[in-house]
C-alpha cells in the first residue's frame, strides 16, 4: 500500500525536482518546436548522401556523388556566385543607408520626425515579399512607372524586369527596413554623453560619428548584417518574380531540382552546401566582430 505521506513526499520531491529545473522546463516547448524542424533537417542532410533512383526516388546507399555534382555543374556554381554576390551588394547598401537613417531616427529632437521616420520603416516591414515584389513588377515593368517615364523621355519604354537590378531593388526593399529596425536599439544604447564629451574635446561631428558612435554600434550592425545576409542569400520569391528565371538564386535552382525534377538527393546536397556556406559566413562575422551572442541581450 502507498500511504498518503508517501504520496506527499513524492509530490514534494517532484516539486523540488521541477523547481531546480524550471529554466529548462520553461524553454522545453521552444526547444521541441525547433527540434521538429531539426529532425527534418537531419533527415534532409542524410538524403543528400543517398543515391538517386528514378523509381524509388532515392536508395539509402552512401555516396558523395551529389556533392561532386553540385561543385562541378556550372549552372549551380553560377547560382551560388550570383546569390552571394548580389546579397553582399544588397547588405552593403543596407548598412550604408541603414546606419545613418537609424542614427537620425533615434537622435532627432523632433518627436514628429522620429515617428514619421519610424512609421515609414515599419510599413514595408509589416508587408510580405509577394506584395512588395508585385509592387516592383508594376514600377519597373514596361507598362509601369519606369516604362511610362522612359516612353515620355526617349519614346521607347524601358523595362528592368528580369534583370539583376530588379532583384536588387526587391531585396533592398525587403532588407533595409530590417537593417534599420535592428540597428536602432543599439543607437539608443549609445550614451549621448560620450558624443558630448568627444565634441567638448574638439572632435568634429564627422570624427565623433566615426570614432565614437560607430564602434559602439558594432554589435547591432553585425547582428543586422547576419540576419539580412541569411535572409537575402536564401531568398526565393524575389529572384523568381523579378528575375524571371534568368537570375535564379540557389533556392530557386534547389526548388526546381526537388519539386520539378524530383531529384531529392541532388536538391538536398545543394541545400546542405547553402546551409554550410551560410553558417561559415555567420561564424566568420561573429569571430571577426568578437561578439559572443546577438540573440538575447541579458544583463
Amino acid at each position, binding site marked *: 500500500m502507498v500511504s498518503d505521506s508517501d504520496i506527499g513526499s513524492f509530490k514534494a520531491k517532484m516539486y523540488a525536482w521541477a523547481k531546480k529545473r524550471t529554466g529548462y522546463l520553461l524553454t522545453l516547448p521552444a526547444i521541441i518546436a525547433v527540434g521538429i524542424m531539426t529532425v527534418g533537417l537531419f533527415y534532409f542532410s542524410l538524403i543528400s548522401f543517398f543515391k538517386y533512383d528514378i523509381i524509388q526516388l532515392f536508395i539509402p546507399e552512401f555516396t558523395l556523388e551529389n556533392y561532386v555534382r553540385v561543385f562541378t555543374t556550372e549552372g549551380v556554381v553560377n547560382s551560388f556566385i550570383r546569390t552571394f554576390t548580389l546579397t553582399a551588394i544588397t547588405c552593403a547598401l543596407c548598412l550604408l543607408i541603414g546606419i545613418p537613417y537609424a542614427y537620425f531616427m533615434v537622435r532627432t529632437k523632433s518627436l514628429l520626425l522620429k515617428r514619421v521616420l519610424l512609421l*515609414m520603416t515599419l510599413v514595408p516591414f509589416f508587408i510580405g515579399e*509577394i506584395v512588395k515584389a508585385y509592387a516592383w513588377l508594376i514600377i519597373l515593368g514596361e507598362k509601369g512607372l519606369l516604362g511610362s517615364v522612359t516612353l515620355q523621355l526617349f519614346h521607347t519604354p524601358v523595362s528592368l524586369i528580369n534583370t539583376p537590378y530588379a532583384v536588387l531593388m526587391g531585396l533592398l526593399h525587403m532588407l533595409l527596413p530590417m537593417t534599420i529596425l535592428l540597428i536602432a536599439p543599439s543607437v539608443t544604447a549609445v550614451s549621448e554623453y560620450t558624443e558630448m564629451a568627444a565634441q567638448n574635446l574638439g572632435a568634429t561631428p564627422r570624427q565623433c560619428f566615426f570614432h565614437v558612435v560607430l564602434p559602439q554600434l558594432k554589435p547591432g550592425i553585425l547582428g543586422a548584417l547576419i540576419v539580412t545576409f541569411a535572409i537575402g542569400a536564401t531568398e526565393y520569391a524575389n529572384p523568381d518574380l523579378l528575375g524571371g528565371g534568368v537570375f535564379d538564386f540557389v533556392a530557386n535552382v534547389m526548388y526546381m531540382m526537388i519539386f520539378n525534377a524530383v531529384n531529392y538527393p541532388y536538391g538536398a546536397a545543394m541545400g546542405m552546401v547553402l546551409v554550410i556556406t551560410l553558417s561559415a559566413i555567420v561564424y566568420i562575422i561573429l569571430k571577426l566582430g568578437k561578439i559572443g551572442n546577438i540573440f538575447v541581450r541579458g544583463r
Partner: protein
Amino acid sequence: MKWYTKIFLIGVMLFFVLPLLIVLICSFTSAPRVSFPPEGFSIQWYFTALSSAWFQTGLKNSLIAASFCTVLAVPVGMLASYGLLRYKIRARNAVQVYLLLPFTVPLVVQGISLLFIYARAGMVGNILGIGFALMEINLPFMIWSVSSAVNRMDPNLENASMSLGANEIYTFLHITIPALLPGIMSGGLLMFVLGLNEFVTSLMLTTIWSSTLPISMYTRIKTAITPDVAAAAAIYIVIAIIAIIILDRTVGIESYLK
C-alpha cells in the same frame, strides 16, 4: 539639419512607401490589366477579388494558419525567453544559438525539412501544420520581443511579491505576465502579421486546397495579369497599417527603438 540630410531621409522614405502607394493607386484601375498611371477609376477589381475562389480560400487558410501560429507562439516564446533570462541554465549560450536556428537555416531548407516530417505524419497540406511551421520559423522574433520586456522589468517586483508570501506560479501569473504584456502584445502581433504574409515555407507545405493567400497571389501573378491581385495586395497594405496603429495604441511604436 543640413539639406543633404533632408534629401537622404526623404529619398529613403519614398523608396519605402512609393511602391506600396503605386500598388494602392493601380488597384483602382478600370482597365483589365495593370498599368501606371492607371486608366480610369473603379473599385470593380476589389469585388472581383473578394468574390473569387482563390482569394476566399487563400484568405480563410491564411487567417487560420496565422491565428494558430500566434496562439502557439505566445506561450512558447514567452516561457522560453523568461526561462533563458531569469533562471540558471548551464548551456544557456548553446540553447540560444540553437533557438536561433530558424533564422540561420534557409527557409527553403526548413520548409523541405518540415515537409519530410509532415509526409511521415500524413500532415502534408494540413492547415494547422502550416500554422506550426509559421510559428517555428518566426519564433526568434517572439523570443526577442519578450526578452527585451524581461530585460526592462525590475526583478524586485517579483521578489517583493514572493517575500509577501505569493508562490512562484501566482507571482508569474499576476506580476510577471502583466509586466511583460507590452512585449507579448507586440511579439504576438508581429507573429500574426508575418504569418499572414509568409510565402516560401508555406509554398513547400501547401497543396492546391490548403494554399494560403500569398501562395494564391503568387500563382495568380504568374498566370494572369488582371488587377485583382493589386486589390488583394492593397488589402495587405491596409492590414499592415491597421497592425501598426494597434501597435502604436498599445505599446507605442517607439518601443522598436529600445
